[in-house]
């Protein structure tokens, strides 16, 4: 049944096009009883959700099937939520305005922890019971995937099943199983049991007897869930007709994923481990993809997406070939995520040819000592050299990203941030053109959040007092040098620190915080730390136990039953090396036998 949303409601909310659908390349299919109906749910607002490449990939795979359909459901912004609640409008899909509760599967993507209350809110708006055990046969299956699913435990009591790894690898298997279940009239329990036998799928309810009534683990878990991934990206499906929004979205351009994973192995970076091994698409495949996407969307900009663009093995060839297309079509090409070390003049000129965007370096730490600890293999010399080239080439804007609170950090390391920024500022006098245009230099810091499946997964996050002390210290130093400083809210980092390594007990905190009105926690204007503190207290949780405690390496971690290919021994070795300040070579220089070769693909076999 299609839900009617009156013009009056739409006229009174910000950006009605967030809710109206009908975009070019959106797919509307008939809702037959036998069709498997999948709702791709992104727990954030339209502009963010539509910028997510993974969603577009799943959308096209599912809609390419005759026996299934995929529609989109995103978090309504707070004004729309209010209108929906006042007018008894349930959560609905953009394509056919179908009630979310009428889909067979609600599939959520977990991109960041602070979107979890939005998941709870969406289920509630759909009239779907929040806890898996309360959802009877008539309610949809709730599943989740994405990077945060690598620690699924905080949402284990909400979500029926998780897909650990890359969704496009197993989405068809999931749909096949649900189709069989529908045809044969099997129960949800039978469906989940069938799903649990699929590689990469975790059904948390099957482990319920390992936990007590508070969500505390009381027994060893003998299940192992191994992540799934696409081994050959050249053969992987990509959306040939991406949806083109009517309103501006965060990434309003043709996005081209050039590779997955990262050869670097920065020790704080979860993506650098969970997406191993690195797998690349070949330039010719990408060029065809670019042509197809430009023709289907009418976009005037191509952007390359990856964790570190300049590490792509054939970047020169690819950019040359893409520029052939873009220059003849008045299209621009942007290359984000360039590393400061191998950034060449030639490459810079290529980007410059069409449009000069700002430059961004992410040294992450202010001193060489600390950069060695985190294995960020960039030297100050590299950065200054690159900055000099950029300034000579006419760049006038530079952003520097750092983290505060990395393991072993001292005030001396914090001072290193201000020193580096100062040197870059001086460099502009020498190589730039300060008379014509002043340098716009911005330093941004975020607080380190220890993440599962990194060598720092056992590390404590610094306390709130330490956070404030270091931020204040840096603020004063940069103020003296008249350098612009942007900082992250320490309260948000603290909450991320608590949730990212949380267990089932943290799930109760999330629901409780939502009950108190928490939602859109990733948005500074809505994040309310007090609601979370109250929720933590009411749940009888010790937040320090999650965030700021050194976890013994003998401890069984909530996510230990998941196998990402990279073995724990490797992570432990990396932790030890971090403390000794020893760096690790990248995957191209030398194989460190992290374990990811077990997938039989990618960079691990490049030289064989």
């Amino acid at each position, binding site marked *: 049944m299609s839900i009617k949303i009156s*013009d*009056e409601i*739409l*006229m009174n909310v910000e950006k*009605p096009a967030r809710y109206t659908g*009908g*975009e*070019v390349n959106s797919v509307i299919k008939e809702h037959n009883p036998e069709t498997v109906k999948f709702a791709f749910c992104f727990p954030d607002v339209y502009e963010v959700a539509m910028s997510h490449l993974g969603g577009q990939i799943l959308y096209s795979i599912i809609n390419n099937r005759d026996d299934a359909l995929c529609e989109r459901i995103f978090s309504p912004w707070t004004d729309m939520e209010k209108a929906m609640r006042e007018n008894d409008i349930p959560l609905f899909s953009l394509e056919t305005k179908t009630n979310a509760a009428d889909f067979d599967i609600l599939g959520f993507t977990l991109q960041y922890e602070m979107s979890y209350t939005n998941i709870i809110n969406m289920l509630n708006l759909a009239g779907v019971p929040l806890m898996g055990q309360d959802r009877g046969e008539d309610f949809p299956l709730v599943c989740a995937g994405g990077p945060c699913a690598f620690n699924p435990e905080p949402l284990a009591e909400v979500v029926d099943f998780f897909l650990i790894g890359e969704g496009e690898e197993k989405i068809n298997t999931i749909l096949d199983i649900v189709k069989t279940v529908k045809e044969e009239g099997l129960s949800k329990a039978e469906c989940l049991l069938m799903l649990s036998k699929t590689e990469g799928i975790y059904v948390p309810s099957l482990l319920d007897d390992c936990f007590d009534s508070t969500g505390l683990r009381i027994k060893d878990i003998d299940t192992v869930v191994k992540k799934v991934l696409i081994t050959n990206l050249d053969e992987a499906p990509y959306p040939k007709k991406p949806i*083109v929004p*009517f309103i*501006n979205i965060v990434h309003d351009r043709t996005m081209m994923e050039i590779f997955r994973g990262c050869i670097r192995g920065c020790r704080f970076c979860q993506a650098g481990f969970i997406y191993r091994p690195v797998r690349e698409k070949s330039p010719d495949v990408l060029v065809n993809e670019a042509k197809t996407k*430009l*023709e*289907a*969307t*009418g*976009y*005037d900009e191509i952007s390359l997406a990856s964790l570190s663009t300049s590490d792509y093995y054939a970047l020169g060839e690819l950019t040359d070939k893409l520029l052939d297309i873009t220059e003849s*079509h*008045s299209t621009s090409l942007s290359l984000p995520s360039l590393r400061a070390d191998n950034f060449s003049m030639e490459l810079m000129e290529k980007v410059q040819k069409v*449009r000069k965007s700002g430059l961004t370096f992410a040294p992450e730490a202010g001193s060489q000592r600390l950069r060695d600890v985190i294995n960020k293999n960039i030297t100050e010399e590299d950065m200054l050299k690159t900055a000099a080239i950029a300034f000579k080439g006419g760049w006038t804007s530079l952003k520097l990203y750092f983290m505060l609170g990395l393991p072993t950090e001292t005030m001396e390391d914090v001072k290193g941030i201000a020193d580096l920024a100062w040197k870059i500022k001086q460099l502009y006098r020498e190589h730039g053109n300060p008379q014509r245009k002043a340098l716009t230099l911005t330093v941004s810091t975020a607080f380190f959040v220890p993440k599962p499946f990194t060598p720092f997964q056992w590390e404590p996050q610094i306390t709130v007092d330490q956070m404030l002390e270091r931020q204040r210290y840096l603020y004063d130093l940069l103020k003296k040098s008249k350098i612009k400083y942007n900082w992250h809210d320490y309260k948000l980092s603290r909450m991320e620190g608590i949730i990212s390594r949380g267990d089932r007990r943290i799930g109760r905190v999330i629901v409780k915080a939502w009950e108190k009105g928490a939602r859109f926690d990733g948005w500074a204007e809505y994040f309310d730390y007090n609601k979370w503190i109250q929720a933590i207290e009411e749940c009888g949780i010790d937040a320090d136990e999650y965030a700021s405690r050194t976890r013994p390496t003998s401890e069984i971690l909530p996510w230990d039953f998941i196998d990402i290919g990279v073995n724990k021994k490797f992570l432990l070795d990396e932790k030890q090396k971090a403390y000794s300040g020893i760096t690790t070579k990248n995957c191209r220089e030398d194989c460190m036998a992290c374990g990811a070769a077990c997938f039989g693909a990618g960079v691990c076999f490049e030289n064989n």
Partner: protein
Amino acid sequence: MMKTFQRAIRRSGLEAEYSHGFNPQMQMVFGAPLSLGFTSEAEYADFTFSNDYEPDDVKNKLNDTLPEGLSVIDTGIRTIKTNIMADIKYADYDFILFSKMSHESIVDKVMTAENLLAEKSRKGKTKTIDIRPLIVKVEAEDDRLKILSKAGNQNNLNPRLLVEAIRKNIDKSVEGIGYNRKEQYVEREGKMISPLDVIALESK
């Protein structure tokens, strides 16, 4: 709207003319801007192509790729330099009006008023203006009110402002919904004509 058409043109394979500046932009001008939430039966735009296309060819190619609810009704070749945005002088709207007072007396009061004050807010600032000179004609038809008013970048009246003025000066209870633009006009020799008729005039 601009972006939607720019992308549609790029998808259609029609070759548009771009500006030659640092940041090339597709040459495209729209008539009077349409308020958010309004429907319209008559929007006009000037497109510049780098090839000589048949007008019907442009129409068909765009209609093949425009999103649902948006279609090109007619096309013609312009020969004069003035752009459509500067050229539009009047517009016809209609909308449903809920009121306690009869529509006939509202129309009568509007048409006989010497002035009609309304508060116009722009960028957070409110100023009181007299909208009466902007109104050419108001008529009642069934449950709808029809208005012909000045439009364009010099003098422009948003019919919502008319409803606010009626609420303030004539009948407190009024609410308008379903705003729809029926037509836009340019002026030639003191007469209002449709922009597409101008093309016929020009080509004579």
